[in-house]
């Protein structure tokens, strides 16, 4: 496996942290002290939530964007950054 660059590490660590915090961390907080179910089945936002649902969504979304941005970044820079590139194909038959 190629070494991770600073950009890789930032996107992987920050993206992963945002997704895990938004889903798991805030989920735990809401179970303990807020609203375990952030919206109703009819789509109405539960306002007793500690973290507004829009904020939670944007945190998770930012994590996804960092992951997706890394994919695009690696594709665009693959020919100029040393170490980028995926392993050579292996025989499958």
């Amino acid at each position: 496996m190629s070494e991770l660059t600073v950009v890789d590490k930032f996107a992987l660590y920050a993206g992963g942290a945002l997704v895990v915090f938004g889903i798991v961390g805030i989920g735990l907080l809401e179970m303990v002290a807020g609203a375990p179910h952030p919206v109703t089945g009819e789509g109405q936002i539960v306002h007793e939530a500690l973290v507004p649902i829009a904020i939670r969504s944007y945190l998770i979304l930012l994590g996804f964007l960092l992951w997706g941005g890394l994919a695009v970044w690696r594709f665009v820079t693959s020919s100029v950054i040393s170490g980028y590139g995926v392993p050579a194909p292996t025989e499958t038959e």
Partner: protein
Amino acid sequence: MATAQTRLFGREVSFAVPEVWLAYWLVLLRLIVGWWFMHAGLDKLLAGSFDAGWFVGGRAAGTSLGPFVTLFADGAGLAFVNFMIPVGQLLIGVGLVLGALTRLAAFFGATLMIFFYFINGETGGWSHGVVTGDLLGLLIFAMIATVGAGRILGVDAYLLRTGVVQKYRRLRYLIG
């Protein structure tokens, strides 16, 4: 059984990779997720008149993605969405089923799932928590793209050995 060694979160990590089980599950995941999207695309195309207006202009309004998505709520934007959703789903599905341009297909699959995840979630899908089928679909697409599942019994295994791909390494980010 091969042993993978790498460095993660500042620590050396070493673990055995059960090749046959990994290969088996990656192919199964690719086929089932591929069929999921292929079916969704075909279903809409065969029905004839797909209209995403209720989703793009209606449901999405007021959600976190609303300010962006509602830009496509009418006119040429809506026509674009009405064409691209079924065709995109079909192409993503075919790509995964055949294992052709798998990484590219999975990337767009994950992108599409982001819209479904937040818009469906904020309009009722999260009534039992924010981990939903849409999120799991998104994560499976991300995994397929990351590991390059098309290399296993897929067209990509052939494409990766072609001269063009050998010459232009960048293509390996689309194929695999």
